[in-house]
C-alpha cells in the first residue's frame, strides 16, 4: 500500500475530529516548545556567561581564600582570613611569570551623596588593578600610588553607580561620596565594563586598599587577582603563585584558579542546569505522548467497524497497523513542527530580552533536529500499541461492532 494513501487516510481521520486532534497536538506542541526553548536558552546562557568571563582576559588568575577540596565546603571561616595584602606583594615581587597582582578587599555597603543613598560594591584595591583587569577611564584618573601610600580618601566610580548616585553623571569629578561616614573625593569615572552573570560590573566604586583596611578595620584580602605575563605563561604563574603562598602560609589554605579552570567549572554547572531543566521539559513531551496514546485508543474503539470493513475487503494487519501508526505520527510531527516554531520564538524572545543575544542558527539546528526526531519517536512509541490493538481485531467481531 502506498504511503501517500496512508497519509491521506490519516489526514481524513484527523480532520473528522478536529477539536480532538488540535487538543492532542497541543500536548506535543507544549512539550516540544518547552524542550527547544529551554535547551536553546540554556545554550545562550552558557555562551553568553562563558563569553563574558572570557572577556575578563585569559591571563587572569584568581587566588581565593580556603582550600577547595572534593566534597568540602569552599571558603570555610578560617580560610576567609588567610589572604593578606603582604601575600599580594610577595607574589608581585617573587613570581617571574606575573605582570601584575591586585589584592581585593570587597564589600557591599551603603554609600550616599547629595541626599541619594544606594547600596553598592566597594572595592579596595591597588592602582595596578586598572592594568590587571583592563579598566579604562571615561573621565579623571584612576587610583595612584600616592593614594595608596597616603591612604587617601579617593574614589573611582563605575558608570552605573555614577548614574544612580548623581543627577549629572558625566560631570562628577571633585564631588563627594560618603562611605561608612567618611567623605571620599571622586577622582575618576570608569568606562563601562558590562555585566558578568547578570552582575553589573559598573555598579561599584574603587578605593585604595589601604584606605579600605582602615575604613573597615580589616587587614586581609577578599581575594587576589594575579595577571600572568601572557597566555602561555599562565601555568607557570599558577605554579609560582602557589609555591610563594605555600611558603608564606606553611599550609595550603588558599586556592588558585586559572580562567580556563573557572570557565570549565562554570560551563559544567550551566550544562548540568540546562540538562536538568530540559529533562523536566521532556517529561511534558512524554505526557503529550500519553495524550496521543489515549486519543488513538479512543479512535481505534470508535472506528472498530471501519477496521472490520477494511479487513473484510482485504486489509492485512500491517495495513491497519500502518494506518493508525501514521495517524499518531502525523499528530506528533505536526505538534513537533508547531512546537518547534513556538519554542524557537520563545527562546529568541528570552535570549534577546535577557542576554541581548539572539540564539545562533548553528546552535539551534541540532536542537531542532533532535526535537523533531524526538516528537516523531513519541508518535511511534505511543502510537504503536493502539495501532497494534487495531491490527489484532477479528474481522467478524469488528464488523458486528455498533
Amino acid at each position: 500500500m502506498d504511503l501517500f494513501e496512508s497519509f491521506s487516510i490519516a489526514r481524513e481521520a484527523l480532520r473528522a475530529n478536529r477539536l480532538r486532534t488540535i487538543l492532542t497536538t497541543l500536548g506535543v506542541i507544549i512539550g516540544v516548545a518547552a524542550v527547544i526553548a529551554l535547551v536553546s536558552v540554556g545554550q545562550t546562557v552558557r555562551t553568553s556567561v562563558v563569553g563574558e568571563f572570557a572577556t575578563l582576559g585569559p591571563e587572569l588568575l584568581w587566588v581565593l581564600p580556603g582550600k577547595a577540596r572534593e566534597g568540602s565546603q569552599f571558603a570555610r571561616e578560617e580560610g576567609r582570613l588567610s589572604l593578606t595584602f603582604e601575600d599580594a606583594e610577595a607574589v608581585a615581587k617573587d613570581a617571574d611569570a606575573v605582570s601584575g597582582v591586585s589584592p581585593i578587599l570587597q564589600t557591599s555597603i551603603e554609600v550616599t551623596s547629595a541626599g541619594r543613598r544606594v547600596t553598592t560594591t566597594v572595592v579596595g584595591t591597588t592602582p595596578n588593578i586598572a592594568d590587571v583587569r583592563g579598566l579604562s577611564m571615561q573621565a579623571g584618573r584612576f587610583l595612584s600610588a600616592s593614594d595608596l601610600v597616603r591612604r587617601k580618601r579617593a574614589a573611582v566610580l563605575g558608570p552605573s553607580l555614577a548614574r544612580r548616585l548623581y543627577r549629572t553623571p558625566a560631570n562628577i569629578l571633585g564631588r563627594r561620596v560618603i562611605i561608612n561616614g567618611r567623605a571620599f573625593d571622586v577622582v575618576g569615572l570608569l568606562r563601562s565594563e558590562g555585566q558578568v552573570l547578570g552582575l553589573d560590573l559598573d555598579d561599584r566604586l574603587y578605593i585604595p586598599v589601604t584606605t579600605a583596611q582602615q575604613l573597615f578595620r580589616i587587614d586581609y584580602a577578599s581575594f587576589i587577582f594575579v595577571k600572568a605575563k601572557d597566555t602561555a605563561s599562565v601555568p607557570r604563574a599558577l605554579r609560582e603563585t602557589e609555591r610563594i603562598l605555600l611558603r608564606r602560609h606553611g599550609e595550603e589554605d588558599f586556592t588558585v584558579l586559572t580562567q580556563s579552570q573557572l570557565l570549565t567549572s562554570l560551563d559544567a554547572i550551566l550544562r548540568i542546569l540546562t540538562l536538568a531543566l530540559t529533562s523536566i521539559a521532556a517529561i511534558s513531551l512524554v505526557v503529550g505522548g500519553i495524550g496521543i496514546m489515549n486519543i488513538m485508543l479512543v479512535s481505534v474503539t470508535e472506528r472498530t467497524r471501519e477496521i472490520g470493513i477494511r479487513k473484510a475487503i482485504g486489509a492485512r494487519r500491517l495495513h491497519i497497523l500502518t494506518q493508525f501508526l501514521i495517524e499518531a505520527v502525523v499528530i506528533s510531527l505536526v505538534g513537533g513542527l508547531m512546537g518547534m516554531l513556538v519554542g524557537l520564538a520563545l527562546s529568541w524572545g528570552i535570549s534577546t530580552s535577557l542576554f541581548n543575544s539572539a540564539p545562533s542558527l548553528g546552535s539551534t539546528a541540532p536542537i531542532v533536529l533532535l526535537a523533531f526526531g524526538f516528537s516523531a519517536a513519541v508518535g511511534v512509541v505511543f502510537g504503536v500499541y493502539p495501532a497494534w490493538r487495531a491490527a489484532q481485531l477479528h474481522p467478524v467481531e469488528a464488523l458486528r461492532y455498533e
Partner: protein
Amino acid sequence: MTPVVALREATKIYRLGKVDVPALRGVGLAIEPGEFVAIMGPSGSGKSTLMNLLGCLDRPTSGTYLFGGHDVSQLSDDELAELRNRRIGFVFQTFNLLPRLSALKNVEMPMVYAGVSRAERLRRAQAALERVGLAHRASHAPPELSGGEQQRVAIARALVNTPSILLADEPTGNLDSRSGEEILAIVQELNAQDMTIAMVTHDRDIAEHSQRIIHLRDGRLVRDEMVPRPKQARQELIDLAVVSP
C-alpha cells in the same frame, strides 16, 4: 469443473464463557462457477456463520474449506486477507461503506490494499461505478446517497478486483422494495455475465431470484432445492412501475 467454493463437514463452535455454542454442525456445500445460490434459514440457523466461513472472514472449527480447489482452512490471517481482497466480493446488508470517503474512494479501497497503481485504481473504480449506473455520483460521500445508491457503490467495490465469487448478506434488507429489486436486477445481470453469487436472505421472495436455494436450520443444511424459473428483477421493476405509476 472445480467448484468455486466447497465446504466439507464444516463445523463452527463459538465459546461463550465456558459454554460451547455450535453454530454449524457439519455442513457440506459446493457452489459451481456461474451459479447463483441463495442461503435461507431462520435467525440462529447459522446463515451468517456460513457466510463468514465462505467469505474467509473466519475459519471452520473442523472440516475443510476448499476455495477454488485449495484448502484454505489453515491459512494465516494475512493470507486470508489477501484471498478476500483478490477473490471475494462482499455486499452487506448495512452497505458498510466508509462514510467520510467519496463513492469513488470507497470503490478504490480494495485496490489500494491490492497494490494497484493510482491511475489504474481511478480507471477501474470509475468503470465499476459506471457498471452499476453511478458514474455521475462518484464524488458523493455515502451519507449523500440513497440506500439503493449506497448498495450499488458497495457492489462496485465488491467487483473492482474481479473476484471469483460475490457474497451478498441480505443485500436488500435495508432497502425499500423498488431499490431492492434494482439491486437484485444488478446481481442477476452480473450472474448472467458468469459471476458466481451466494446470497443470504430470510425472504423466500428474494431467494427465488436465484437458481438454487439452500435451507439451513440449527446449523445443518436441511434442504437444497433448485428454482425452476427464477424471478426476473427487471420484469418485476416494470410490473412495479405499472402498478404504481
